[in-house]
């Protein structure tokens, strides 16, 4: 099997990049599958020739749930929406949107943009809600 085309970042480097707002890193397999999740081989095809890519910060919500009982790291943020987002250009990630209190405030198909904050995790905002800086800062894919 082919070796990785370049050294892959550690999980910590990956996390620090998206929490600092510098990069939303991902990995593309030779089979075309793109994921943000760290690994040494593609979880779909098993091939090891995985390359690092910058993921597009823009995407669409494919599934969500509004959280009313958080874990400790989100203690002061509930309610908020946990979202699964299909990114433009490929890749699907878990993330969250703050300030969402009910199912009526978010919908499958809504456009969102990765918008780093000082809080943990991959944070999104609805597209067009003053969150386009990250998209332009990272090239927007």
């Amino acid at each position, binding site marked *: 099997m082919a070796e990785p085309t370049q050294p892959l970042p550690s*999980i910590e480097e*990956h*996390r620090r990049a998206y929490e600092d707002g510098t990069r939303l890193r991902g990995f593309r397999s030779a089979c075309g599958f793109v*994921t*943000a*999740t*760290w690994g040494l081989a593609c*979880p*779909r095809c098993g091939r090891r020739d995985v390359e690092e890519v910058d993921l597009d910060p823009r995407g669409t919500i*494919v*599934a*969500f*749930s*509004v*959280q*009313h*009982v*958080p*874990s*400790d*790291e*989100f*203690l002061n*943020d509930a309610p*908020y*929406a*946990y*979202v*699964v987002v299909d990114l433009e250009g490929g890749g*699907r*990630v*878990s*993330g*969250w949107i703050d300030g969402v209190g*009910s*199912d009526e405030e978010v919908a*499958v198909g809504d456009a969102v943009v990765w918008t780093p904050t000082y809080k*943990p*995790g*991959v944070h999104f905002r609805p597209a067009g809600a003053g969150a386009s800086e990250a998209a332009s800062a990272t090239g927007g894919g």
Partner: protein
Amino acid sequence: MRETWVVGAASNRFGRMPESGREAAARVALEALDVAGLDPKEIGYTFVSNCFGIAERQAHLGPLINTALGIPDVPSCSIESACSSSSAGLHEAFVHVAGGFEDAALVVGVEKLSHLDTLNATSYFAMGADYAFETRNGATFPGLYATLAHAHRQKFGTREEELGAVAVKNHANAALNPHAHFQKPITLETYLRSPVIASPLRLYDCCPFSDGAAAVVVGAREKHPRPSAEPLVIRASARSGSIADMHDRTTLTGLPATRTAADKAFRQAGLERGQVDFAEVHDCFTIAELMALEDLGFYPAGGAGRATTEGETERDGRLPVNPSGGLKAKGHPVSATGASQVAEIFEQFNGRAAGRQVPKAEIALAHNVGATGGSCSVHIFGRR
């Protein structure tokens, strides 16, 4: 491979245990051995599951249990597979006994979390998911299953009343189970009035944080031909896995690991879905029971909700599901759950399930999921 039986099983009352996990595990193990009519010295290996033992400042529980049982020289190891830990332990015991390495093995699962508050318990449960890529992005355990529920509703039009019917049925069953955490039936109105935890899941969609312990004794038929109770013949012991992160899978309306484990199990057993008389399935949330029934192949995708509202999965229905009350109402002491499903099937096969006895107990299935399906066990049991 030798024919292998479950020769004894036991569970304590789920809920809030006054004693430590270590004490509860040893007691329930001894009870299961007594049911089997085996002396502890006949055990060749002990498999212990206790995912969150660190919450009691204790790891390496196996030697403590074996010492308490008077068999300190018997080997032990800890088996961790999140909520499917003790069914994974059962699989290991099966492999050891069926493969001829041991003539009998003990499986023990125990959890004690009731001394933690909801915030800490929620945080512990979330550790079963991917911390770096799910939990740190806002996922909680109810949140992940709620996201599956949303996707299921989006695709199949799953109604709140269908989720509620699972809760009402399982609470009714638990009310007849002296080992269950919840002992009272609920109405659909009570369900619909309960607060939202993670939309669309309400409080009564969620299993409780329970303490509890359960144990299973596995033995080779040729070495234990005359057990004290009616044994369960292990017709299939199958495990499977899938991509750990839910968002990276090809589906958000089911658990791929359940499908592959079920296919493997039915092939091993040489049985068809229609031959199963009743099932204990992994209903950590109501949506999980519906997805399980679909992924196991008992109903087509999107079909389990209607079957549930029409009573097909009640104790006297076409396919009784979770006569114990399930994780939802019997309770879910994470590492004890898989073994407790087997303890329920053992009771049913021995005609000791009293008011919750199912009409026919010849072939039964136990389905136990780790986290959101990164791991999964399916066992099928028959009579000798």
